[in-house]
């Protein structure tokens, strides 16, 4: 923030498209994500949110467009980058939080091993240090230290999701992709998880792209919002602006569909 003149986005997406045969997954998506910013992507099931997220995170190959990521002040296209480099990004600067924790965790490896895996993947070879860091991170996501040698299969859904977050953030990534991070959790657990995520995002200055259909999640976490329908972005803007004064018909429908208890 010292020199606003040369500040550039962390992630720049240009004309990203992906189709499944003749069906559109997502089409012509462009946006910039700035350092420290949280972008929410909302829309109904089948609107292309997850396709878009997977393309951004390099888990799915887009048909066209570019995903430029800041590396040492230079924006590098991660779509055309060699696979080893992209996979290295995936375990250093990027993190991916899955909707179902079992997709993002090794269920037959202890909690400590799960958190330590990324450290070992980038070359940590000191058991004591790895364990200390794992303990530190379990504490940060409110998992008791004496559960460090338990397997995730012995954890509740909310704990698994928190463990997944710890496992992803332990290497200090700059960009986190989240796919429905609160999906399938009951509301009180959701609230705690959201609190935790909000704290971590602010504390670590993380940038994040969050895909969800839950407007409460984006209201709490996201700075900016992108509304998708049928693979296209129909509305973007500041979160409060989009939610309080929706312009597009579909966004209006979405906002008015939320039950008021």
């Amino acid at each position: 923030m010292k020199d606003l003149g040369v500040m550039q986005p962390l992630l720049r997406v240009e004309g990203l498209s992906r189709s499944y045969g003749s069906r559109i997954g997502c089409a012509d998506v462009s946006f910039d994500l700035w350092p420290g910013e949280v972008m929410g992507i909302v829309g109904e099931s089948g609107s292309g949110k997850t396709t878009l997220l997977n393309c951004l995170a390099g888990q799915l190959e887009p048909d066209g467009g570019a995903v430029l990521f800041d590396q040492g002040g230079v924006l590098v296209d991660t779509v055309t980058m060699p696979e080893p480099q992209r996979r290295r990004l995936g375990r250093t600067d990027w993190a991916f939080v899955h909707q179902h924790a079992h997709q993002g965790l090794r269920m037959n490896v202890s909690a400590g091993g799960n958190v330590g895996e990324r450290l070992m993947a980038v070359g940590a070879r000191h058991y004591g240090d790895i364990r200390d860091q794992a303990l530190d991170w379990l504490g940060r996501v409110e998992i008791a230290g004496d559960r460090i040698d338990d397997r995730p299969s012995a954890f509740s859904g909310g704990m698994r999701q928190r463990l997944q977050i710890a496992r992803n953030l332990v290497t200090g990534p700059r960009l986190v992709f989240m796919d429905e991070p609160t999906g399938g959790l009951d509301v009180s657990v959701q609230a705690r998880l959201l609190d935790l995520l909000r704290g971590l995002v602010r504390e670590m200055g993380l940038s994040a792209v969050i895909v969800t259909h839950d407007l409460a999640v984006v209201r709490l976490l996201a700075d900016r919002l992108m509304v998708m329908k049928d693979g296209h972005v129909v509305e973007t803007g500041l979160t409060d602006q989009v939610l309080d004064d929706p312009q597009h018909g579909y966004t209006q429908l979405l906002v008015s569909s939320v039950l008021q208890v």
Partner: protein
Amino acid sequence: MSEYNFAYLDEQTKRMIRRAILKGLAIPGYQVPFASREMPMPYGWGTGGVQVSAATLTPDDTFKVIDQGADDTTNAVSIRKFFEKTGGVAVTERTAEATVIQTRHRIPEEPLKEGQVLVYQVPIPEPLRFLEPSEVETRKMHALEEYGLMHVKLYEDISRHGHISTAYAYPVKVEGRYVMDPSPIPKFDNPKMEMAAIQLFGAGREQRIYALPPHTQVVSLDFEDHPFDPSKAAHPCDMCGAGDSYLDEVIVDDRGGRMFVCSDTDYCRARREAGHRGRLAAEEMA
């Protein structure tokens, strides 16, 4: 003897296996796929090792087979007889006299020399298998040298047992490149793998061959604060008195009596012939 082609396999198959062996030697530690044949023995009894031996043996070779270090167990005897019958090769129990040694679970105690070939029987060639079930993914991990996962296994060992409890099939890194499963040899044998002989690994069911050329660097994986320890039972051999060999523990009665003997029967015999005696050797001789 005349009913069989030399060493059972047909010449085309042997050529195919030799190509895989040569490729394996050119890329130490890399698992080369090969078209494994059905052999007249069940999977798990050394079908991979037998095929590699068949492709390696010549009529002038002297063949030795050990199973857990012993020359006289069922598996070792039947494979030795197999090649006596189908290849008419000379066989021996003496490590120094053999040119091709097929082994299951051990490396002979006597250092191997140039000109010798050690053939391992391998059940599961992929060291990452139990952590990563996808073959596509493990191949990619080998290709990109992503071996963090191997340390996750060692981490789990320490967190559960306080030390690296993997005692056999202890993963190694070959020439600073490929992580390799040394087959289920005890970790005591891992340091011996930097040897003058050629080492070939055959996995019949999994259809993989890999190899180590002579004097290849083989490093056992570990943590800085939990270094690799090639442990053995803290006893000398009760038969020959050797303090440097890998020992089997044998229960000798139902009152807690036990003895420790060299698992390498040829090594133990040679030492006893040279006059060495262990704690229980006297009554054995009487």
